[in-house]
């Protein structure tokens, strides 16, 4: 009984945060992925600027990780324009290969903002953010790593509402941090073998 009460107290104080879901598809290609190009994210939400904001967060966190080198965003945009890609959801393998040869990157990071909104909880609005990303090899055009993470403003909430977050941007930052950490861990581990 004492252990049960202690367990419940620990959960109540720590909150409940789900870890990202991810999978390393091709460890050989992933091991060589050091220089990356971050492509614009697909925005599947009603929030107009969600994709741009999240992509900027990714850029900063990937650089901070020290594991990856990033191609200059202006050069990425130039290659996209050259390939006449209007819709970020329709980047084909020819564009991905062009990124590899023109920007000397081994992989491109693509993603989609799946959720960037609020939900109702006890009459209050709680922000919710969900992001899905994938790393694609510029050599083979195939997916080498995938990851997704969904969090909301109450997942670090403890007793009496402490830890509840009301800003979607801060939740998005947490999601980005989780995904970059997971990607660095999984790909960094392969690269160091």
């Amino acid at each position: 009984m004492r252990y049960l009460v202690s367990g419940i107290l620990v959960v109540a104080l720590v909150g409940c945060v789900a870890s990202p879901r991810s999978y390393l598809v091709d460890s050989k290609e992933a091991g060589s992925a050091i220089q990356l190009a971050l492509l614009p994210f697909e925005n599947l939400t009603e929030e107009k600027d969600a994709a741009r904001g999240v992509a900027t967060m990714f850029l900063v966190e990937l650089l901070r990780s020290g594991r990856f080198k990033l191609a200059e965003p202006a050069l990425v945009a130039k290659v996209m324009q050259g390939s006449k890609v209007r819709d970020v959801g329709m980047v084909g393998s020819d564009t991905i290969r062009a990124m590899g040869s023109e920007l000397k990157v081994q992989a491109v990071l693509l993603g989609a903002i799946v959720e960037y909104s609020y939900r109702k909880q006890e009459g209050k609005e709680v922000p919710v953010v969900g992001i899905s990303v994938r790393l694609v090899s510029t050599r083979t055009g195939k997916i080498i790593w995938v990851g997704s993470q969904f969090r909301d403003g109450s997942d670090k909430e403890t007793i009496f509402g402490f830890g509840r977050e009301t800003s979607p941007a801060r939740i998005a930052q947490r999601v980005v941090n989780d995904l970059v950490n997971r990607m660095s861990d999984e790909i960094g581990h392969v690269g160091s073998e």
Partner: protein
Amino acid sequence: MKIIGISSGLLAMLLLVGCSGPRTYIHPQADISYVKMVAVVPFTSSARDRQAGSKITELVINELLMAGKFDVVEPGEVKKAMQEMGLYKRGNGVDIDNASLKKLGEALKAQAVIIGDVREYDMIRAGQDSYPVVSVTLRLVDTDSGRIAGMVSHTGKGGPGPLFFSFGETHTLSQMAEKVCSQMVGSLIGKAY
């Protein structure tokens, strides 16, 4: 001791009553082991959220890769091939006839395609709270014969379950969508192999 036994039995019953898994069908003559590459066609959606099809497509791709049974064609490449064949409509998927399916399979070197339909992707109000409902159907179709090799349908609903302290509750649409996709792909692959 007897009371603990009865309580455990009641709890187990409540759990079983509250859970219903995906409904899965595998063609008795289908041999899915020959499928090495799968293309996921953008899903159709009759849900209120116009992007629900794209969101679920994204999550199903992740789950298929995480299952580790076959490669998945990079989604941008699928959309590009479909556009070149005059099959792609942005924002909503398409129903494809057998002849086009065969051509698409050849173009993408995919032995099978996943076609999906999102029937429900919404938050429902319950008092001061709101809870997610996600309902999806997937078909695994042989690109050569056009035959349905497998099919799975599932509806997931969040909100207060039979468990106390809200354990196991799913509050957000994207978390529920991820759960539904994971269960569907797990069931389809589990029964096929």
